[in-house]
């Protein structure tokens, strides 16, 4: 199938700085894709290149089978929402939403009906006569969304739309954006630096770093199966243990790990490696007799997080490196664990990731 949006070899230089180093990406029609990455990774630049607000130094963009690489923004087909809302402060809500419609010589009654429909869609019916300054941030962003969707564009671009909102509004609005996008089926790209946000809304996540795509995949793929060291460290919380390849297995500290699930065959014995393991992949229970990869840890620090705690444990057998694990509040209480206590822990071998 032909992708709805295709980026080929997109490169962007700002003077001697290269913001995008040859991006290739296909996005299918109706897909919700998030560009995720730390600040300065190029995600916003990539979005602006798609929008035609920045001109790529090299590369080709096809939208709905049309080469739009050199087209000015007005000749592409998209709606855009910015972090700052960018609502026209001197126009009321109706005029803001109708801004793009009026220009297309749509009859007045039709414009009114469309505005009412859009406002109902974003959950603010009847707010036509209000000015943006009379609305809360979340409401303003809904209006901005309605305005971007007014002309029924084929592509919706969201540039950190939720970053300026407070936490509760952010969570509510993101799920509304997601269900609206499902309903309309509009292909959507959202830029965000908030991984939780990306996990919550995206069909696929594009993890970016230093102008390159590190990995493209669903939330689960990105989290469970990070393709690169960067993704493993950037997404979620993770433990990194220095290890050494040892006769087809792994040696961490004095312990030889059972890791038949992990491919370390490419590495010659004695080579230094890193083992990555998420906190939830180190279990305190259940541990059955005979389980492999079990070791004893010493609790150094307990950080209260609500239903569970982040616990830092040190295990002599694993060398100098401390591990962070999640332990439920209930378990800590039951087992009467506190700083200085010792407990057995088991590493889940099938969850380990090894990077050279």
């Amino acid at each position, binding site marked *: 199938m032909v992708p709805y949006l295709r980026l*080929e*070899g997109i490169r962007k*230089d700002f003077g001697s700085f290269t913001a995008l180093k040859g991006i290739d990406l*296909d996005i299918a029609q109706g897909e919700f894709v998030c560009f995720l990455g730390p600040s300065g990774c190029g995600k916003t630049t990539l979005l602006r290149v798609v*929008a*035609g*607000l920045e*001109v*790529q*130094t*090299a*590369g*080709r963009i096809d939208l709905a089978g049309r080469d739009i*690489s*050199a*087209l*000015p*923004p*007005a*000749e*592409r087909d*998209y*709606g*855009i929402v*910015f972090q*700052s*809302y*960018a609502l*026209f*402060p*001197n*126009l*009321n809500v109706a005029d803001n939403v109708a*801004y*793009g419609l009026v*220009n*297309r010589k749509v009859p007045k009654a039709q414009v009114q009906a469309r505005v009412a429909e859009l406002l109902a869609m974003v959950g603010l019916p009847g707010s036509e006569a209000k*000015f*943006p*300054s*009379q609305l809360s941030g979340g409401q303003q962003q809904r209006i901005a969304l309605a*305005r*971007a969707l*007014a*002309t029924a*564009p084929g592509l919706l*671009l969201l540039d950190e739309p939720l970053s300026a909102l407070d936490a509760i509004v952010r969570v509510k609005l993101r799920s509304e954006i997601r269900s609206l996008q499902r309903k309309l089926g509009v292909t959507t790209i959202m830029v965000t630096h908030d991984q939780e946000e990306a996990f919550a809304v995206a069909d696929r996540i594009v993890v970016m770093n230093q102008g390159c795509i590190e990995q493209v995949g669903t939330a689960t793929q990105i989290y469970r199966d990070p393709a690169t060291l960067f993704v493993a460290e950037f997404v979620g919380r993770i433990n990194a243990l220095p290890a050494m390849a040892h006769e087809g297995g792994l040696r961490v500290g004095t312990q030889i790990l059972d890791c038949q699930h992990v491919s370390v065959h490419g590495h010659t014995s004695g080579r230094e490696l890193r083992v990555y393991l998420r906190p939830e992949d180190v279990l305190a229970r259940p541990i059955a007799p005979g389980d492999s990869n079990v070791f004893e840890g010493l609790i150094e620090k307990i950080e209260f997080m609500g239903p569970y705690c982040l616990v830092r444990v040190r295990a002599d057998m694993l060398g100098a490196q401390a591990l962070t694990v999640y332990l439920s509040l209930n378990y800590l209480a039951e087992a009467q664990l506190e700083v200085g206590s010792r407990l057995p822990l088991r590493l889940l071998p099938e969850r380990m990731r090894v990077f050279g």
Partner: protein
Amino acid sequence: MSTTALAPQSTPVRQRVHASERIAHAALAGVALLLLAFLAAPLSTLLIKAVQDSGDRFVGLANFISYAQTPALMQSLWNSVWVSGVVTLVTVPAAFVFAYALTRSCMRLKGLARAITLVPLLAPSLLAAISLIYWFGNQGVLKGLMQALGIDQIYGAPGIVLAEIFSTFPHALMILVTALSASDARLYEAADALGTSAQRKFFTITLPGAKYGLISAALVVFTLVITDFGIPKVIGGNFNVLATDVFKLVIGQQDFNRGAVVALLLLAPAVLTFAVDHWVSRKQTAMLTARAVPYRPKKAPVFDALMSLYCVGVCVLILAMLGMALFASTATFWPYNLQPSLKHYVYGLLEAEVDVALINSLLMAGGAAVLGTLLVFVGAYLLEKTNGPRPLRSAVRLLAMLPMAVPGLVLGLAYIFFFNEPANPLNGLYHTLTLLTICTVVHFYTTGHLTAVTALKALDPEFEAVSASMKVPFYKTFWRVTLPICTPALVDIARYFFINAMTTISAVVFLYAPDTKVASIAILNLDEAGEMGAAAAMAILIAAVNAVATLLFMGLGWWVDRHTQAWKAP
């Protein structure tokens, strides 16, 4: 997916220019052309004249050398420098204390004190010189007191210094009030929490915070004084300064080449000021973050009383200056018959034909307010909100900032050299009111430009992007959104142009013809003719016109606010 690898592109992708964007590019090119023709080209002519002899042959630095070998001219240079230095040393601390009172004390009637200090801006700067002559001149009221203090006569350096202090005070005050207002209360709270003494707080927080304001105020005052023409002309007597030298060399002796040399000398401090100010404003913006909490002064009876006393003193001096001019202008025959009469006003307006000059002034000021505002705003908009070719934008940006560094006298001189040249196709403009208006717009361009840029920068930078995504051409958004939001700034810019056009002397003194004489020049002529009373009357008249204009502009601002800023009300 295609299997052929993308061929490495040697030329960068170029976005096609949308049809509506071409309009913006053409308009920007238009602004650039205007600034080239009426700013860059005249200034280049001036630079060229300085290295040519009267026969237009290149002579290198010969004019500069001959200048340096003329003792009288070198004396003027020294006079200019030390007088400007003294004025700076007095005005800046005086204005600092006043600004401190306005921003850091709880004294009462701050608004009134502020308003009084702004009054001198409404009149031509030479009004101060005229007043001083009535106070301390040959027939002055306080001549005896002055002589008892050891000053023989007011004409010369003492008069220039006093009059310049009076006329530069508002400029320094405005800069320092801004600098002192930009203070973060949290710094003072932190200092209080550490038990810091008031004196230490002043030297470690207040003064460093206002440092850039002080530098900038000092430079502005120095430049204003060294390039001012009106005051030394009226009260300078035989005390020559650079500004009067230029006039004598060019108008009196027709020695354009040495005139150009002196003009370049005047350009030097202005360019330096401009450069330092540019550097300072960059530093200043970095100091205050968006999260800063504005400082609120606390009541301190003794301190507040001292500050009030000082401000009252300054205000009384300012009012004494203005009052004397007003009083003298209505006195029948100074100092013998002080009966109030409108004799000087009638004489000035009718017999000396200042009525024509006043109408010329109003035409010029109105023209500058309308044309100047239009040009400045459109220019600033195109720079800030459209993406024309980069070299063109850089050129316009530079040209828009340049007038700040060019004293009026230098600009006026450059205009003569450029427009008086018969070979110039624009030669027809010479001596016309149109050229006077254009010269005034260019002279005051930068302040207007900066006001417009500030207003435009306050708008969300994504308006244009959003409009483009909705396929709305930029000019519709300009008309429906940008312009309505910025109208208060437009009113400010128009008022600034109007008031300065009414009072300016330095640029236009070289450019007028008998039928295009403006009121501020007419005052100078009346003074030369010995008609001091009429000169005072006309200066007061200009101040009155400006006061009325200010009120009208305020009314307009209020009306505009009601009709275009309704959205601001919560």
